[in-house]
């Protein structure tokens, strides 16, 4: 893995320019007294930009240090997201030992398998073996109250927070086509992962920005009042254009630019699906953010819900397209 090839550096440069521009916009809006933008919205945006700086720095550092560090970084994010998910989910004392194995066996195992690139194993170990283990272990604990409900809750947490998110670092293990001049594409996996995280985070932000338009057609008012058709369409079209503009940085460079554009659109739509699913869970539990659930925590799950849903789909689309 080589982060110092010119394409990767250009991509990181492009991200720095985008983030710098976001900082300048926030700074200008805060300064201008005539601004009619809601201060709360501006504050949300400012905090998000700061979260991206941290994410970018962590990702760049991990990529620089190699595949193992990157996989460990995503493993820790998964672990923390699962903590937030399970803390929010009511479990019973009978689930205690099942949860122990979920946290300390299946979560690390998934990332070890991803790190070694064992596609045949990491694509089934959770949805088959862990999903059979969970109900059996709960049954052994002898508490049958709301049995299926408790099983499903733990399975959903493991699937979304661990299995799905682990497909993001798995991008580094894909076999990529050689570059135009027949050189092996050593930095391709890094750029693919970078492209994915960048587009997912941008689509989050742009969907939010577009939904601030005065005309609002809320998609599912009972679940989330900030997600509108304007946000979804405007955000998806915007990131599709950005994705097309970054086609040179992805391993799709051998093909037409529309491949990168289509991938960006898929990431945006899956990100929306992730956001709305998490909103439904939060509504049911009566909280606004996973972060406020336990006072003082950043709310990792709030930041990565779109990544969780988009990662496996992006991974499989890329894998299928590169092998065909």
């Amino acid at each position, binding site marked *: 893995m080589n982060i110092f090839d010119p394409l990767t550096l250009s991509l990181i440069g492009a991200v720095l320019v985008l983030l710098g521009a976001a900082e300048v916009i926030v700074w200008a809006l805060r300064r201008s007294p005539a601004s009619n933008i809601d201060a709360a919205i501006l504050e949300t945006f400012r905090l998000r930009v700061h979260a991206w700086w941290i994410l970018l720095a962590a990702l760049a550092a991990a990529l620089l240090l190699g595949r193992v560090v990157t996989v460990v970084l995503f493993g820790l994010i998964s672990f923390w997201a699962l*903590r937030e998910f*399970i*803390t929010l989910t009511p479990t019973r*004392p009978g689930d*205690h030992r099942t949860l*122990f194995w979920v*946290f300390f066996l299946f979560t690390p195992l998934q990332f070890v398998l991803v790190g070694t690139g064992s596609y045949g194993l990491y694509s089934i170990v959770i949805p088959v073996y862990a999903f059979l283990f969970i109900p059996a272990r709960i049954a052994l604990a002898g508490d049958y109250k709301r049995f299926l409900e408790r099983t499903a809750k733990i399975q959903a947490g493991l699937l979304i927070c661990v299995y799905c998110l682990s497909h993001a670092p798995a991008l580094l293990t894909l076999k990529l086509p050689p570059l135009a001049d027949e050189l092996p594409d050593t930095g391709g996996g890094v750029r693919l992962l970078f492209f994915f995280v960048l587009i997912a985070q941008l689509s989050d932000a742009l969907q939010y920005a577009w939904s601030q338009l005065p005309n609002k057609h809320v998609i599912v008012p009972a679940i989330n009042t900030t997600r509108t058709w304007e946000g979804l369409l405007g955000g998806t079209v915007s990131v599709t254009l950005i994705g097309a503009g970054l086609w040179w940085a992805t391993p799709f460079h051998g093909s037409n630019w529309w491949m990168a554009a289509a991938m960006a659109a898929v990431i945006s739509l899956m990100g929306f699906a992730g956001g709305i699913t998490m909103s439904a869970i939060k509504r049911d539990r009566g909280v606004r953010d996973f972060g406020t659930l*336990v*006072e003082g925590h950043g709310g990792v799950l709030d930041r990565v819900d779109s990544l969780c849903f988009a990662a496996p789909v992006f991974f499989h689309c890329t894998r299928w397209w590169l092998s065909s």
Partner: protein
Amino acid sequence: MDTNLARNILALLARFLSGASVRWIDSQPDTCQRVYFANHTSHLDPIMIWSALPPRVRMLTRPVAAKDYWTKGPVRRYLANQLFGAILIDREEIKVHQSPVDLIIREIGHHYSLILFPEGGRQSGREIGEFKSGLYYLCKKRPDLELIPVHIDNMNRILPRGEVLPVPMLSCVTFGPPLWLEAGETKNRFLARAREAVRSLKEIRDEG
């Protein structure tokens, strides 16, 4: 290993594993002599409060713990004696001339603060149990001690009664405003007031 270093490492580890956030509500960390009293659901509770305190306060704070649990095995003995400087109370044999309250007062002198759990044992439900009278007699003899109510949230899910291995869920330690035993206050009224102080911290969390 250097004891202070070991203390700091243990505190960091406890903070990470329990994912604990710490809040001070109408209250500030201070090195003056205090009694931190909290609800009790897990063996990890003393470590939770101890690690939530800033290092300079932590050095002066000693948990009150059950002798039968904390003298079992070399690891627990090392933790209790060397790291926490725990004041161990014999729950089986309470002697008249050697009451736990006298022992505690002798141990803390005019220097150390205390962590104690007035419910006596660990509770299995979500409700806070009735407070035992020890807290009252302690304050009767040392009315100058500042009482800080502490609420520990979610520890009953991280390490419930009867389990050995913890599940790393997130928890929250809340410190509340100080209170004192008032002149002429009866035992029952004082204990009810102290219990209510801990319970009210739980409600602040639920609103947030």
